[in-house]
């Protein structure tokens, strides 16, 4: 998946909402698909995430390209469920009978997977990590942990670049990485991951010195920027999230699920 969206799009859609609002929306969608086996809810949730991605500046091609591995794995989950669950009415037969129960379970599982992964991806790509860390610190999480999250994100592009460079260096030395046997697979992993790991460890040391050398951990608290005011988008999203929660609770109360 691409880690970021086009920087020119950062003033649109979910980019404008507060990290807490985005998190509430993400959790609301996740609980909606986990709490219901309805295909309508699953498709609605994934459709909503896709619409939010377009509203936030993602192009349709960019969005589906970013999710291509997720879509592939969702298809795999769907097929695994379809072929393993035999309850319900038989619909047709390939080498196993495909049933309505299998189709429903497969579609539910795939939609849950798609919604959870795509909404998490959308949240990470539309939320400024510094603002998120500050929000977490305001909520009482010690700032050392808040910055662990930022550092983890900082290392994603680094590892991607290192991995590519190491593989290119091997290519130029005529080293063919074979995975045909467990022994060769282990060697291949050693050839690729050891150099990347060494680079990573060296960099961790340097960053730790850089942080400590700028008084990280000197005080139990650190300066936080003033709280940002809610935008219209924030208010609208909170209304939807609270409304959905109220409807769910009411529906359970009257026994309609």
């Amino acid at each position, binding site marked *: 998946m691409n880690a970021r969206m086009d920087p020119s799009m950062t003033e649109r859609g979910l980019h404008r909402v507060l990290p807490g609002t985005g998190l509430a929306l993400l959790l609301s969608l996740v609980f909606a698909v986990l709490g219901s086996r309805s295909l309508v809810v699953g498709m609605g949730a994934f459709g909503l995430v896709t619409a939010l991605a377009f509203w936030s500046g993602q192009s349709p091609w960019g969005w589906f390209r970013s999710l291509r591995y997720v879509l592939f794995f969702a298809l795999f989950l769907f097929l695994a469920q379809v072929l393993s669950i035999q309850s319900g009415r038989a619909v047709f037969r390939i080498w196993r009978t495909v049933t309505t129960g299998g189709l429903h379970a497969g579609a539910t599982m795939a939609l849950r997977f798609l919604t959870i992964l795509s909404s998490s991806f959308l949240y990470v790509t539309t939320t400024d990590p510094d603002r998120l860390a500050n929000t977490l610190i305001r909520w009482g999480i010690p700032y050392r942990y808040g910055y662990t999250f930022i550092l983890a994100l900082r290392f994603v592009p680094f590892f991607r670049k290192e991995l590519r460079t190491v593989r290119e260096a091997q290519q130029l030395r005529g080293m063919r990485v074979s995975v045909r046997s467990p022994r060769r697979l282990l060697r291949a992993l050693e050839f690729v991951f050891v150099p990347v790991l060494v680079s990573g460890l060296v960099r961790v040391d340097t960053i730790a010195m850089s942080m400590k050398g700028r*008084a990280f951990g000197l005080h139990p608290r650190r300066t936080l920027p003033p709280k940002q005011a809610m935008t219209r988008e924030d208010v609208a999203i909170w209304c939807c999230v609270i409304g959905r929660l109220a409807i769910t609770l009411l529906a359970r109360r009257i026994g309609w699920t």
Partner: protein
Amino acid sequence: MSKAPQLSMNGLSVRFSGRTSDALRDLTTCIEPGSTTAITGPSGCGKTTLLRTLAGFIPSMIHAEVSGEVRVDERSFAALDLSALSQRVGLVQQDPDAQVCTLRVRSEVGFGPENLCLPYHEVTTRISESMAAVGIEHLAGRDTTTLSGGEKQRLAVASILAMGPEVILLDEPTAHLDPAGAMDLFVLLRKLQERSGCSLVIAEHRLTPIESLNPSLWVLDRGALVSRDEDRTHADARTLAQPRSADRLVAAHPTQDIIRVQRLGFGYRERLFDGLTLDIEPGTILGVIGPNGTGKTTFLRLLAGLEKPEAGEIHKPPTSRTGMVFQHPHQQLFERTVRRDLEIEGPLEAQALKDLLASARLDGLGDAPPYLLSLGEQRRLTVLSTLRQHPQLLLLDEPFIGQDRGNVSWIVSQILEAKNRGAAVCLVTHDIPMASALCDRILYLEDEPLIGTPEGVFQKLRLRGQRAFTPEYWEQP
């Protein structure tokens, strides 16, 4: 900023665990308030260790036995917490990319002041002033991973400035900068010192650019301070590493062996090459120079076949072997021992291995893990293993970064050997005097690329006013 403190060392020695010799030996000297000190010496002489000790990282973060004393004014380092010391002494580390902690330029500059728990308005003032001091206000909202090498170096300086230190330590600050960027950095440091009165301590292999700061000179060798200020003309680690003019002789080669770049077009976000055409003849060295971010490494990647041209073609002889020495040596060391790394291209007899290691001054390191070698040793090993492939096209990406005179001379000798064997060599470097002395042709990359003999290209650069890219700028104090 208050008056800069005096930093003094009294009998300072440092020994890393597991080592039998001291990394620093019995240093007794001091850094006067508001002064500039240049520290030089061969690779592994203790420059970085000294700076890390002065910044307080040794022994509090890097375990080592430290004897003697370091004092800031009259207070011993032992009585100061590292984080508290950071408000008085700041270290800009060697690799600017590796010391960035956050994802936005503004938050990176504000990281230190925020840790000091300063009022928010003071944090914003320090951010604005530090960014203005190094000229990166326009980058405030940028993602730190998208900055060029020069921009990252300025960011690293700005983030230390925001801490308001009285002593700024810089570890090879120009290593990743193009010549113009290096020149700008020293102009910036001079202005900063004039304005704030801070002390500067700069570890560098090349002293010529620092001369404008009129520094005191310390020469370290094997951890000891061997000279101060005398012998300045010979202290520059690069000046003696020039090739002989006889090496410029070019033998004739069949035309089918020539590598032809025709109407090359390529770019990532921005177009880097548009219709670039040139030939690289066997037995010649092409030097590739130019500002940061103009596509020097990309040009090598295209020649190596790691990128495909978007337009035009690169014709290489069908049986041509390509060897590439990457900028960071650890990226091309894969095996558990030096011997096994050299044997990737095929087994070596015991005597042949011994001779090969001796030729690169790696004697007795055959069974050593490559990752535990020093940077200079790693560099020699990667050059050696690349040349073991007998490449007809040898590509080198900044092979002289962080290397002392001895290593530079050895790398130059290997390049000349490959050239004399008939290899086409393409060398990316910011070392302009070296490019001038070593290369048969120069490719200067910018909006309007220049290609020609070194004399011709440097003459055109003089006319364009690009003084920092001419050899005389780096040769005259």
